[in-house]
């Protein structure tokens, strides 16, 4: 399913992977942050910092799958807003919170399902266009429901999601790790996951070899909707109230994490672990620069530079290979 399996195992190949580069970057970021601010290396501070950036990270998992499928979903942040607004509005109308949470997840699933169906039914439209439209529609509905008001004052227990700890570990971190394991297994250890890579590498060939491309796409987009709803739960819990303009720009953050994680925008390549490291890399980078009160614009420039590096480096590799020795196999192209 991946280049490692195609070739005999080599330690050099193993360490040359982008994921190691990310781990190295992650260490560099931490060393720099520690030197920049005396407040950085503080277990309580670092622990609580994860609570501020992990909410959007739940959407990274399905986004990895979507980008491996050569698609993209830019409607996720609007799905977050809609799911959150529907939940809060129902709660203020007297629906019990437990039921409102379930409905929130259902709203996410429906939003994702609609994306998936549209993309599968209208193949001439790219996923960018479809999700751009639904991005506007979903947020539009959120605005119709709440106008410019906020809704909130949730029950006490709901605040636990975003602010609670289990044995000193933030609940959101535990949830994130569990989801990471689940999605990692789903992508790398199941037939479903292997088919995602196959479609990403060559959709036409996959279709002709009997892979149910449409079904898989619909499932993956629905998953994206559900994870957006989970983000909505955590975000709403952290804010204690919601309004239609929450989660603005989250889709770009999520896509940035996925691309930095080494998932190729051309599809078919990349690993879940890369994106997970990228989540923490960007998260701690932001936190560290925030501690020295770096202006927000500088932060954006740095993340932009990192993305360019992430996109550039994998493109350097094949070229260097071609120069050095004759190509032995097109290993990366026909995996799966």
């Amino acid at each position, binding site marked *: 399913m991946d280049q490692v399996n195609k070739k005999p195992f080599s330690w050099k190949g193993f360490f040359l992977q982008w994921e190691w580069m990310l781990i190295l970057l992650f260490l560099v970021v931490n060393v720099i942050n520690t030197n920049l601010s005396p*407040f950085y290396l503080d277990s309580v501070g670092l622990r609580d910092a994860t609570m501020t950036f992990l909410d959007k990270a739940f959407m990274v998992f399905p986004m990895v799958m979507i980008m491996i499928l050569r698609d993209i979903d830019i409607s996720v942040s609007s799905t977050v807003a809609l799911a959150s607004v529907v939940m809060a509005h129902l709660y203020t109308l007297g629906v019990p919170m437990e039921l409102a949470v379930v409905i929130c997840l259902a709203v996410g699933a429906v939003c994702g399902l609609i994306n998936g169906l549209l993309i599968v039914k209208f193949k001439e439209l790219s996923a960018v266009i479809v999700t751009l439209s639904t991005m506007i529609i979903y947020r539009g509905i959120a605005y119709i429901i709440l106008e410019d008001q906020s809704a909130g004052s949730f029950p006490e227990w709901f*605040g636990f999601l*975003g602010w609670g700890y289990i044995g000193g570990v933030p609940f959101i971190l535990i949830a994130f790790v569990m989801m990471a394991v689940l999605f990692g297994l789903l992508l790398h250890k199941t037939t479903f996951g292997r088919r995602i890579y196959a479609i990403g590498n060559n959709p036409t060939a996959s279709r002709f070899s009997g892979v149910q491309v449409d079904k898989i796409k619909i499932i993956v987009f629905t998953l994206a909707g559900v994870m957006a709803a989970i983000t909505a739960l955590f975000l709403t819990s952290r804010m204690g109230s919601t309004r239609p303009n929450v989660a603005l720009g989250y889709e770009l953050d999520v896509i940035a994490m996925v691309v930095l994680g080494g998932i190729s925008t051309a599809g078919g390549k990349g690993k879940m672990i890369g994106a997970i490291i990228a989540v923490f890399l960007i998260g701690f980078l*932001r936190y560290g620069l925030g501690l020295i*009160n770096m202006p927000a614009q500088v932060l954006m420039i740095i993340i932009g530079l990192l993305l360019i590096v992430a996109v550039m480096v994998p493109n*350097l590799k094949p070229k260097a290979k071609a120069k050095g020795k004759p190509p032995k196999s097109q290993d990366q192209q026909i995996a799966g």
Partner: protein
Amino acid sequence: MKKLFLEFLSIFLVFSMLAACSQTSSNEGSGDSGSKDGKKRFAIVFKNTGNPYGEKQMDGFKQAIEALGHEAILKAPDQPTAEAQIQMIEELISQKVDSIAIVGNDPDALQPALKKAMDQGIKVLSLDSAVNAQSRMVHVNQADPVAIGRVQIEAISEMIGGKGQIAVLSATSQATNQNAWIEQMKETLKDPKYKDIELVKVAYGDDLRDKSVSETEALLKSYPDLKGIIAPTTVGIAAAGKVLTDKGLKDKVHLTGLGLPSEMAEYIESGVCDWMYLWNPIDVGYLAGYAADALVNETITGKVGDKFTAGDLGEKEIVEDGDGTQIMLGDPFKFDASNIAEWKEVY
């Protein structure tokens, strides 16, 4: 191996660059590890970056804090959202600052984060755009809504000679500030003194330049006898000034409201707008700086009746505000032909 080396090198370059620029930025005095010289550190979090009004407010805050011999930390997120501000509050809690002054992007959503800060002994106050009473110790109000509503009606009445139709050009229909002021204008109009003035319409330009222009044009068409327009928003008043100038309606339709001197100087100098009002954002920040210091010194605790001296602004008293407390900056400041030249340079 060479390319591997190159990759590492390029990544290292990026990071050394960022380390370098962060070093310089902290030397410039926005300040990072300030506690080592024993100075107290006061933070202000504005709504978003790149807002000239916000820059002035943060300047005023910095002036006050530095005059008191402390260190000011100025922060603003790239997006005007509550979630970005929550992240900044967490960062400030980790830095163990002494006080956080916040211009809230949402009245309620910051409550858990600000409560967490207060639980750790950090003094929290809001300014300009308030957060709810549970998330702050005191609020610094740029101007008394009653005073804002009143002075604008007084102004338009004087301009049109106490008689005729007037209209209001507001921001969005949900804007909390503007709605409160318009409410006060309607209250003021009930005074028998203003019985000949008729408020015919409240139009909403949504704080967008083009929409405000077309709303003004619509007002002029629908109400040919319109004598005056009050625009209690900086975008609206500038748009109305432009329309009245283009249509040559100077002296026929009068204009007042709340505007930025730099944007309105042209119209005040030409006489399209006789005078207008605004508070001084520098003073709002300045007052918040002194209030933060008083909270940290425990001169005040945020209770009604507490008094403190706010530098050049003199003595200020804490008053009631719904279920919370606030400090009023005072009546809005009047800008007319005599002082606009001086103020248009300021903001």
